[in-house]
Every structure is written in C-alpha cells, then in structure tokens.
C-alpha cells in the first residue's frame, strides 16, 4: 500500500481550469443557466427594491426600526423561495451532466474538483444575476418611490445607503448561488464513477 501512495501523485485541477470549465459548461447549457440567473435576479431585485423602499419610507416617517423589521421579513421569505428554486434547478442541471461528471472522474477528477466546477458556475451565475437584480431593484425602488412620494424624499436618503443596498444584494446573490449549489454539487461529486456513467436520461 505504501508503494501506491508514494508512486502515485494525487491528481490536480487548477482553479483557473475549474473556472474555465464551469464557464464553458454554463455557456453550453444556456437556457438552464439563464433560468438560474433569472431566478436569482428576480429575488435580488425584490430584496433590493424592499430595502430601498424601507430607506425611503424611513426617511419620510422617521420610523426606522419598525419599517426595517417588516421589510427584512419579506426579504427573507423572497430569498428562501429563491434558494429552493436555485437548488432545484441546479439538481436538474447536475442530473443532465451525470455522464460528463462520470467521464471526468474516470479521467482523473476527484470529488473536490467536481464540487469546484459547480461552485464556480454558481459563483458566476450569482454574481451576474445579483448585479442585474441589485441595479434593477434600486432603479425600480427609486422610481416607484419617486412617483409616489416625490423625488425630494428619494434624494434625502444618503447615496451611501443606496450603494450598501446594491452591494448587499450582490453579496446575497453570490451566497444564495453557493448555498443553492452546495447540496447538488456534493451529491454529484460523491457518486462513484460507474454510477454516474451508467446514468441515462
């Protein structure tokens, strides 16, 4: 046994390769990727929209704590719904790719390499969906509030607060993508190569 340990070097998969692989895989499955990115975008839009509305409402009424608690609960519900959606779509996505993963494992990919590919893919989707969602949420929140309560109140909220909402949206989206992919990635990475190769859709 010692012989095997010393003579066989553990296989590698550089991060840049995993990132490239995740990107190309994502591009090859355009529709599925767009669905994931879009569901992240929608929930982050909703989340940032609520945050912006809360800030504007607080600037108008001065009831910061009550308003923020209400909006925060709604945000949590929206994010939970999105998390279930992302996990479900990622599970379908890994099921489609069983054979590809089986082949990769057959050629030398370890479990961690497979997990890396999925997490990178989710990172890209989370960042794209999150950025789009955060900016949309900010724009919609500002326009809706501006039309309802007037632009003066919208302008009363410090710019820094809006930037914080956008950044929080992007970070949440990335985390959402990672959380949603964790279980599907772990599930598929743990498959024995023969199980993955045997799988037919």
């Amino acid at each position: 046994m010692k012989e095997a340990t010393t003579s066989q070097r553990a296989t590698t998969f550089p991060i840049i390769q995993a990132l490239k692989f995740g990107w190309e895989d994502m591009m090859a499955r355009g529709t599925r990727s767009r669905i994931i990115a879009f569901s992240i975008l929608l929930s982050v839009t909703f989340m940032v929209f609520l945050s912006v509305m809360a800030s504007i409402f607080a600037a108008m009424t001065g009831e910061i704590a009550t308003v923020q608690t209400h909006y925060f609960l709604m945000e949590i519900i929206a994010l939970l719904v999105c998390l279930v959606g992302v996990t479900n779509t990622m599970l379908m996505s890994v099921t489609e790719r069983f054979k590809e993963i089986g082949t990769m494992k057959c050629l030398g990919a370890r479990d961690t390499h497979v997990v890396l590919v999925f997490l990178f893919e989710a990172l890209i989707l989370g960042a794209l969906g999150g950025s789009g969602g955060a900016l949309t949420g900010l724009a919609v929140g500002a326009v809706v509030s501006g039309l309802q309560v007037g632009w003066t109140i919208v302008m009363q909220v410090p710019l820094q607060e809006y930037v914080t909402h956008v950044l929080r949206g992007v970070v949440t989206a990335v985390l959402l993508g990672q959380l949603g992919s964790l279980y599907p990635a772990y599930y598929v990475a743990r498959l024995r190569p023969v199980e993955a190769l045997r799988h037919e859709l």
Partner: protein
Amino acid sequence: MTSIVETIEVSKEYTLRNERVRALEGINLRVKRGEYISILGPSGSGKTTLLNLIGGLDLPSGGRVLIENKDLSRMSQTERTSIRCQKIGYIFQTFNLIDFLSALDNVALPMIFAGKSKKEREARAKDLLKLVGLSDRLNHKPTELSGGQQQRVAVARALANSPSIILADEPTGNLDLATGLAIVTLLYRLKTEMDTTVICTTHDLKMIEVSDRIAWLEDGSIQRIEDRQGVTLTAAELEPTDHKT
C-alpha cells in the same frame, strides 16, 4: 512476461429492487504486459462490470483486482483516481467526449488532471490527434464529428497520459463495420507500437483477429480463455454477426 492486471476470485453483486443479483462470480484472469485480450460474451454476461472493476471505476463485492500487483480495493479513493488518470486509458462505446470542449481540449483533459503544463498538453494532444488521423479536426466539437472520428478522439484521449493499460468497452458497438474495423486496427497498432496492454470487451467477433487471447464470459463467469491461434474461426467467417450490438 509479468502480469499487469490480475483478478483473483472476483465477484460482484448488486441489489436490484431488494433482490441480490450476482453479476460476476469467481473471475480469475491474468493479463500480461503488452497483451491484447478480448473479453467476449453476450449482452448481460458481465463484460462491462468486469472492465469497470479492472479500471477501478467500481469495487468488487469479493476477491481482489490487482494493477501492477497493487490491490485496488486497499487503495484510498485519491490513489484509485490517480491510477485511473495515469495508468489507465478508457474508451467507451458511446465515446463519452465532453460536448462543449474541442477535440484538442478533450484529449488534453486527462493531462490537466495529471498536472502537465499547457504547452505540454497542447503539443501532446496535437501529436495524438495526428496519430489517429485527425490533425485537421483539432478545433471541432464532438457534435461536428462523425461517430468514427469521435471514437478516434476518444482513443487519442485514452492515450494522453501514456497509460500502460487501455480499457475499451465495446469500442466498435456504435460504429459501422468499416469504421469499427478501422478502430480495431488502430488499437492493435497502438498495442504493438507503444507496448500498451489492451483489454477490450466486445460481442463483435471480428475482434478475435487482433487479440492475443480471448476470454469467453457467460452468466458472470469465465467459461474459457483461448489463445488467438487456438480459435479456429476467422473474422471473415463471422461477418454476419457483426451488426449485433
């Protein structure tokens, strides 16, 4: 000649709908270095299961599989992955190329896992694709290639890390007669020129022509192992069964 692959009393059982199914039983096989051995048998005889066990893609329920005298069951998962990457090349009936990678990238993939540099990978992948007659298809995706060309890419990929063993699971199963023959001839050429051991499962009887030995598998047991010379049938006589997959 030393044995490079050895199976000792190997058995494999599956549980299928709460029922135990014995896929292999008492498999004893010694494959010598540089040998071309075909495992013949009807569908469901356990050929692929045996190949999966030899390749470390699955573990036996009983017995031992030795690769260069090392027991695969006693290795860690990382060690088995490493053996798969560096010592074994796989060729599948359904080619199993990664569809979004070009022919060149497909061939280079095992070399990424083996830790080769980009320059090394590209040079070797180009050489291998040239060897299998696809130097003009480097940047084509699998979907832009014919079945025979895809299988050639798979052969090139199997050779990427200069493995000592090639495991081919019905490599001609999805190909027409002429293309199948070309792949078989290519495998034989590689075996002779590179001193690679080839273990090939098939129920395509023309494989006999290029084999050193033939193991006949039926109902999960090896019925007999014969030398090529001992088999009286020729591929020409057996042509009518070629279409059987």
